[in-house]
Each structure stands twice: as C-alpha cells, then as structure tokens.
C-alpha cells in the first residue's frame, strides 16, 4: 500500500485516495474550436510510461482535494506531491 503525502494533510495511506489518471493532460478550453484530432487525443490517447509519471489523485477520504503525484510506475517510488495549482518538475 502506497504512502502518499497529501500537500494539505500530510502522509496518509493509499486507501484514503483515489487515482485520477495522467496529470499532464490538458483539457481543450471550453467554448473554443478544437479539431477532432486534438479532441480525440485528449479523450483517448494516454501514454503509459515506465518510470516517472505525474498523475492525479484525489484525497477522497480526507480533504477531498485533487493533488499531483509524481510516481515511478515501475517501482511505485513517489518523488514529489503537489497541489494541482503547483508545478512538478
């Protein structure tokens, strides 16, 4: 079970969180024209990298904030967590 540091609440067990997918995907702006290719890429196309990956988790049984987690998909090592408004490099 992973040990995830919520930027609001501190270190908490994985069972308090729910996984929310790739954090680097940006939704096309609302009310703006978008090509069907860009849209399909946004909806369907995801990379499945081995190694470092920035993903979204929600602290669903805690503060209910969505957060960013930089995790190694092979080893589960977590390098960094951040608020969604913050950048992870």
């Amino acid at each position, binding site marked *: *079970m*992973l*040990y995830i540091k919520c930027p609001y609440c501190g270190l908490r067990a994985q069972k308090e969180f729910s996984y929310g997918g790739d954090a680097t995907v940006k939704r096309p702006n609302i009310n703006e024209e978008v090509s*069907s290719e860009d*849209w399909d890429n946004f909806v369907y196309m995801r990379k499945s990298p081995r190694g470092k990956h920035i993903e979204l988790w*929600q602290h*669903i049984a805690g503060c209910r904030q*969505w957060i960013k987690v930089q995790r190694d998909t092979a080893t589960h090592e*977590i390098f960094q967590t951040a608020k*969604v408004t913050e950048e992870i490099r």
Partner: protein
Amino acid sequence: MSQPFRLNKEGLINRKKKISFTFNGKKLFGYEGDTIASALIANGIHLVGRSFKYHRPRGFFGAGVEEPNAKLQVEFNGHSEPNVNATEMELVEGLSATSQNCWPSVNFDIGAINNFLKMFFPAGFYYKTFMWPKSFWYKIYEPFIRKAAGLGVASIEKDKERYEHKFEYCDLLVTGSGPSGLASAYAAAKNGAKVILAEDKPRFGGTLLTDDVSIDNLSGKDWAEKIITELKSMPNVTVKNRSQVFGYYDHNMLVMFERVSDHLEKKSKFTPRQRLWYIRAKETILSTGSIERPIVFGNNDTPGIFLSAAAKEYMKVYGVLVGKKPLIFTNNDSAYETALEFKKNNVEPIILDTRKEHSSELIDEAKSKGIDIRFSHGVIVANGYKKVKSAKIGKLNKDKNSFEKIETVDCDCICVSGFWTPSVHLASQSGNKLKYEEKIDAFIPDKKKQHETSVGAANGLFTLEESLKHGFENGSNLSAKITETKTEISIPNVNEKKYGAHDKFWCMPLPKNENPKRFVDFQNDVSVSDIEIALREGYRSIEHVKRYTTLGMATDQGRTSNLNGLQLVSNIENKIVPEVGHTTFRPPFTPITIGTIVGREVGMEYMPTRKTPMHEWHEKNNAVFVDAGAWKRPRYYKQGSETLFEASKREAKNVRENVGICDVTTLGKIDIKGPDAAEFLNRVYTNAWMKLPVGKARYGLMLREDGIVMDDGTTTRISENHYHMTTTTAQAANVLSHLEYYLQIVWPELNVNVVSTTEQWAGAAIAGPKSRDMLSKLYPELDVSNDALPFMGYKEAEFFGVPSRIFRISFSGELAYEINVKSDHGMFMWEKMMEVGKEFGNQPYGTEALSTLRIEMGHVAGPELDGRTIPSDVSLNGLVSKKKDFIGKNSLGREAFNVESRQKIVGLIPIDRKSSIPEGSHIVQDQNAKLPNPKLGHVSSSCWSVENNNPFSLAIMKDGKNMIGKKFFAVSPLKNKSIEVEVISSHYVDPEGKRVRS
C-alpha cells in the same frame, strides 16, 4: 503413558503441566511448551503424512517454518483447520490432529500405489496425460486428481472466531529475535526509536536457544532473556512473539500475522484468535536468520530423516530425541554440534562427513569425545519404508561422483546438513536484487529498493560475533538517523566455537544398478530425475523449470529445496548458479488463515450500512429491503402472504389510481453555491442553465468527456447563487468527485463550491393523481394549485412547524412532489404523511413499484444509462444544446455515434401479452438460427405494466424506433426462455407527459 523419546531434564518445556491430545484417534500426551511435532516425536511417532504425488510415507523434517512434510488437519477450540504445520502449532489441551492426503489411513494408503507406478508420473505428467479426450477433463480427470492430490479439508462451518486488524507505525521494525535481531532492537531502543520486535516462535532468542555459546559470560539463552526483559520494560518498544512478518509491500509497509490465542486453553470473550498487523516502518531490520539445507540422497524422504539443526532444537528446546541410533550426514561443521548434543545425552552418533579428513575446533572436540567420524563418506540410500531402519553408506572417491567401501549401518534417524541458506524472502519481496555469495553457496541481499537492511545470518554472516556486531551497528545507525540521538553501546564479548570451511557438495550420486528417488522438494514430490526431465525437454529458464516440475511451489515456498534445485540445474546446464538466477519470492512467507485476512469485515461489518431516517418505520411495516450501494431501501411492503410481484403491482397501481409515498432519501444531493454556479452547471449539463429562474427545477443530463451519459437528475435554483443538485443513488459519489475535478483542476477560475448534502436531507416523494389533494392537507396555508406550484416548481414552506422544501418533480410520471426536511425530522414527516394521506388511499411504495412506474413511462435509469449509451440512444437528445459547449460535447460528433442503425431505446411487449421478458434477454430475428445468432439488442428493464395489465420491457436495439411494429424474439438462454415480442414506443403510458403537468 511414557514418552520413550523424552529426555529427563533438557528443554524449555513446562514439565509440570501435562497436555493430552489425540493423533489419528490415539490418545497421547505432551507438555506445555511442546509443538504437535515435538510431542509426537517424544511419543516415538514419525509417520505423520503421505506425500503429495506418490503418497510416500513422510515424517518430520524440520522444527519450524521450514517443515515441508508434517501438515496436519487439526481440530481445537471447536474448529477444524487444514494444513497446519505440526512443527509450529503449539500443543493445547484436547487438540486432535489427523494425517492428511491418505485414505483409508496413514499406515495403509491406497494412493501409495502411485509410488510403484512412478515411472508413469514424471514431471509434466498432468500436462501430457490428461489432454484427451477433452471432455474427460471436467468429469473424470479433474475430480480424480483433486481427490488424490488434496491436502487438508477446509471446514464448511461458520468460523465463530474473532479476527482483528491493526495499523501501526514505527521507526524500526525488527523481524526476528535471534542474536542480530535482539542487538538491532536493543541499539535502536537505546537511541529512543519507536521499535517493534517481531518473533515468529513462542520463545525469543532464535539460535541463542540452541547454540552452545556465551555472551558476556551468560549463556545465549540467558542473554536473550535479559535483553528481552529490558526491551519489554521500555515504553518505546513493542515486543511480539508468535508473530510472523510475512509480507513486504510498497513504501515500507509490512504485514504481520499474530497468533494471539491459538495456544491458550481458555480466553476471554473478545480476545481475537489471530491478528493482522499493517506496519508502516521508517526502517526495517531483516533479522530472519538462515535455514539449513539438506544434502540430496536416495530415499531421503523416509520418516526419521531430519535436518541436523532441527534434531538439535528438539533436544535443546523440547527435551526430545529424534532417534537413539543417529547417523549424522554433513558437509560442514554445524552438524557436529548436533552430534555433541546427542553424545551429551548418552546417545552414540556416527558422523559421515563428505569432506576429507581435517581438523577444526568442533571436529577435534568430537574426536576427543570418542565420536565415530567417517570422512569422505556419505549416505547413498536410506532403507526402511515407514521409518528409517538402516542406511547404505559409502566412501566418496576424489571427484565425489562414485563411491567404494559400500556398507549398511543400522540407524533410526539420519540428521543431514548441507550448510545454510539465508532467509532472503522479505528482502526479495521488498524489491532487493539479490546476489550470489560464492562463499556460502547462497543468495544474500544486495541492492535495496526500500528502507530495509538484512543483518546477521540473513545477510550471510554465520558467526555469532559478526552477527551481533552487525546487529548493534545497523540498529544504532539506522535509528540514530531518525531520532538524532546516539547512545554508545559496547559490543559484548562472545564465546563461540570456530567453524571450518564447508564442502561445496549437495547431492549424492546414484549407486550402480539402483534407482531410488532422490527428492529435492519434499512437499511437492519433485525429485532429481524430474528436474533432469524438464531440462531434457528443453526448459531452460529457472522460472519455467519451476512451473513445469512445481519445484518450490508448495506452501513451504521451497525453503529447503530451492537452492539444491538451482545447483542441479546449473550442474546440468554447466552454468554457475548466479547465471541460472532464482525464482521470485512472494508473500505470504508462511501460509496464513483467510480469517485473518478478512478480519472483522464479515457479515454486517463487511461494509457500512446506510439507513434513512425512516428506516425503523419501514422495518415495523414489513418492508423487505434491497441493497442500493451501502443503502438499505424498502423493495416492497409485504401485506399478508403477498409475493414481491403481487405487492409491487398493488403499490404501483395505487400510485396510478390514488397516491403513494416513497422514501427517496438515498438520492444523491449536492449543494452548489457561488456567483459562477449557473455558468458551472451550464458546462456540466448538456442543456441550458443560464436562464433558470430562482424557484424552478430543471432536469439535467451529464456526460463524460467521451460523450457517454454519466448521470441524470434535477437541479433546483434555491436562490440567486445557490443550487440543489440531485443525482442517482448509485452515482452520487462519482458525480461529486467529477464536479470537484472540474472546479479544482480544469476551471479553477470559477467561483463555485460544492458539498454533499445527501445525509442532511430526508426525502419523500408523493405521487399519484390525488397527490395535490394530499399536499394541500399537508400544507393548509400554502397555495399548491397548478398555477402557484407548477410542474418543475419549487417552494419552501413549514411542514407542521418544520422547515421544508417542496419540489414538483416526478420520476413515476404521475403528478408528484418531493418533500425534503432535515434528516432529524424525516421520521416526523413520514408519519405525518401516512396519517394525513389515509383519506386519499395513500400507501407506501418500494423500489420495485418505483421501477414499474418509471419503466412503463419510458423513463431511463441505471440499466439504460449503462456506460455505453449517448443521449440520442435513450431519446434524450432534446436535452442536448446545440448552442453552447459542455463536458463531452465534442465527442457527440463522432462517426460511430451518428450511425442510423445504432442501438437505441424502444419498448417491447410479448405477443401473448402474458409472458414476462427476462432482463438481459437478447433480441434476435430467428430464435432457431444457427449460432452465433446475430444479436440485435438487449432487454434492459422489465416490468408488469399496471396501466395496461401485461408485461412491458425497455430494450436497447439496433435501428431503434425504425423497428416499431416489427416482431422479434427475446431469448434468454440463462432462463431457458424465448418469447416472441413486438417493438413499440418506449413511452408506453402517457407518452405526451400530460399527467406530470396536470
């Protein structure tokens, strides 16, 4: 009742307390502190089971977790447990143990015929033999194999015992209380670290209990006791015996299995039987020690053959002799300690040492005591069927591939030692890449991935001095990093015997013209020849050899067999062991009970139960409940001997004719506030929300970004910047997360807050043509006319002195209202409604009637919004705005969503107007067509239409409305039904929707 193999004085058992037990029906006794194994051996019983494949007689081999053979069915404290390790289970009064995998008895086992047919049972036998005819597998082969290969029998009784889970956090977890574990725990504790020390066995000390050593002039045992006593007195230390750390998971989470009360005769009511600990440790010390490995020789599985350290442990800990004419067969010095222990107890051993004549401290001592030592000798084959009687021994030649001077010596036990294998299971589970250590012919931990450090024998350090030093240093350094204090500890003086080098020898060659089985893996009956066959047949990867032969795949995880198997493969392949590699170690290290894994999450505690404030009323009025997620909802209210079908028809009919009330508290409710709330709803829902006036509700449809319908419900504008959203019961949690996602991540610029208020409001729906009359009685002061409170209208008013919200919305398709009051007033509201509603013929209705009402109206719900449908599939495209953007809009243009023949919602009625159509039925053109019969759609919801008094179903079907008027078959192979149906509109009742507006 004498115990012929019990020594008079030796051992740590409590001789004052006799314990009686039975084995295969025979009444025996042992002492408190015995294991089942030690008590049986004390009674001279060695034959305890039959082997897995050949049903060969098997006895004890080890004295702890390494035991591959002695798995018993054990009954105690009123329950029966299979596959109990006899070497680990402590004796309790009244315990009854029986042998497994033998019929009719362990002494006469019919399955043993397999032993004489062994040429037909080579590795891969099942893969090769039971392949044809194919149909025989399920009916003949598999049941037979299962019966023949079974281990114990799982109880079918309900487990009455209590199991618990515990979560714990610590600075340092120490797994094993041998010398290095004690040293680590002590050093860390002195540095102020929060320490948990776990010991699998009942007694602390590990090898200190059996080795002839002294530390600071104390015996090993006394030193261990001194350290444990001090650790127990420290507030920052938790010391646990009978606790096996069996799994190493991500981020330094380890799981431990504690046998809390299995050893107790009596316990208090709430004492759990076993406990599962989830321990999050900042650092872990793996002081798991090492396990002796055997040397392979002919018939090396005969009862009476032991690991030499186990024989010593039986003497030193339990005061039990494994035999009175022992043969010690070794390639190293450690077995000499066993020989000396025998000698001390006036038993004369013979030592067969595979090494050439040489000298070391231990050898010299054995020699001086007059022990018969034969160098360059080994056991060729053990004789005896149910118990070893003698052994054929021989002198090994220089290359150790043949022997001379073959002779037979009498013996009643053979104690074998092929050197030591560090227990690297937990290190490997943690992701540590192991390395092969040539010096000890075994793997030790190397590059770590997590915060773990193996100390002492687990790291290949086999002397006490090294182990202690390693333990103290690592315990101190690792904890100092956490606590930032370092207390100096002087490392104690150690007195131990020096060992000479071991012999890299692990398997005896076969004698000429003889072919006895030489077992590598006892528990799975894998012999040298099986591995040879696998390699001959082309299996090269050790992982494949393992799976083909099942080497190391039994519940003992190959603790005594893995390395010998690897040696064999590397010899045949002419590779060195590190190139062959090792197979993966997986949790659990030892088998644990299912009960412990489940813990308290059984029965009602399996998941939380959510009850509405009116639950008690429903209970009192014969409601039959149905689970809706965690909620309990009344499915119907049973009157007399009514069936579900009759009751739901009555309730639904009453709504159509009079008025009914339904508990709708379980609907998801989300409070939405903020200046941008309207804009937010406008983006979340497919329809327009900017112009919804205060005091009005609107039905809304929510999509996922891929265009699929996510949820539907009504949202009401309570005030300028305040909305009340409802969701379906099932999607409530998902919708809230969905809204939070968009507010926090995608559109943080929107000033909106959302919070779940599902539990804050109790809700009741009043539905039926007389609902307005009833409402006017409930709110005598309020104008409830169609003009004042029209369809989709909203009002706030006092309900007999209690604040309430009135929504004129309808799921049943009738004139209907939903009243919300604060949860605390829910019961008051409900009872008042029942009282006031009497004169209008009001009756409560459950979810079954509710479904009937919505189905015949053609209102969609979960079965139609099944994660595959877009708005036009379920005739809701009228709600999809063409003017504005919203979540999922761009996906609706996808080609596949706009194909004319796409499956869409329709209604179905049976041609005979009688036969109910099973939900899930497939719609086909020709019920007799050859399979695979082209599927045109499926039946999503079915009911008995109370309005038209015949069955009616909703279906999602190819070409949708274009099929109206055509006839098909709805077939359900599951229910063995085929019903001819006609396609009609999905709106079977009141298609214009007049009633809700009346």
